[in-house]
């Protein structure tokens, strides 16, 4: 699984009416290991998990998330956004081993 990591994805509408609340869905590959499990040889698998997700819209903070190891592998996250103006939604994921990934998606508000 560790060679399949990152690859962040965002799915959301590309256009919306002003004031409409739209759903944003996201996915990223990460093992999200707890550091409590052992491998087949009985060796502890180190904790490796995404700790923060920062979501901005036009560079303004929208939503900040702190995750523990209790979030499932390859974490899926959905949230809402009120469409007020056209712009770019950006998400940044950071894990406890220094991994950083980002993805963005454009929204046009009519």
């Amino acid at each position, binding site marked *: 699984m560790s060679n399949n990591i990152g690859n962040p994805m965002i799915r959301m509408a590309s256009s919306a009416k002003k004031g409409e*609340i739209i759903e944003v869905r996201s996915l990223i590959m990460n093992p999200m290991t707890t550091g409590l*499990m052992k491998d087949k040889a009985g060796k502890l698998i*180190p904790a490796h998990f995404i*700790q923060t997700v920062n979501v901005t*819209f036009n560079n303004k903070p929208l*939503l900040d998330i702190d*995750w523990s190891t*209790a979030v*499932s592998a390859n974490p899926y996250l959905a949230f809402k956004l*009120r469409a007020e103006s056209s712009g770019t939604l950006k998400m940044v994921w950071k894990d406890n081993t220094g991994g950083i990934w980002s993805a963005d998606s454009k929204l046009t508000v009519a």
Partner: protein
Amino acid sequence: MNKTIHRRQFLGTTLATGAVATAAGIGLIRPQLAFADNVPGWPAKAFDAKVLKEAMSNAIGKTQVAVSPKVKLTAPTIAENGGAVPVTIEIDSPMTTDDYIAAVYLFVDHNPTPLASQFTFTPACGQAYIQERIKMAKTDNVRVVAKTNKGELMASAPREVKVTIGGCGG
């Protein structure tokens, strides 16, 4: 005058950094893993707590919060795979700059570390809504605490999820 202050601040910072480096060097501060370091701002104290009361106390400063029908938590009654239990959180709030949900905390009562996730919302979200998948070690209660921008706390009713295969096996 300005110069003096700057010099003092500089000295203070240098001394403090030196002390931390020394403490780490002689093993007073335990590095979690040789290669791993927490992301700055990640609330380690709340996430590291091993029991629900401690996790709640570290996260929200309270161990009991009154249940409000405004806080809705949806989770399956039976989860075959405790490794991926879908949860949906929805809090009834106008989400205006004067009245919005500022933070939401998701707990699993008996997980090795009960605080599963923490969410910091802004009014621009339009709705305090989250969907994600979590791990559950065994049949257990999931609960949510929401905090308004005025600091008021309200909780969801605990939701029991029956887990057939635990998500933390080994």
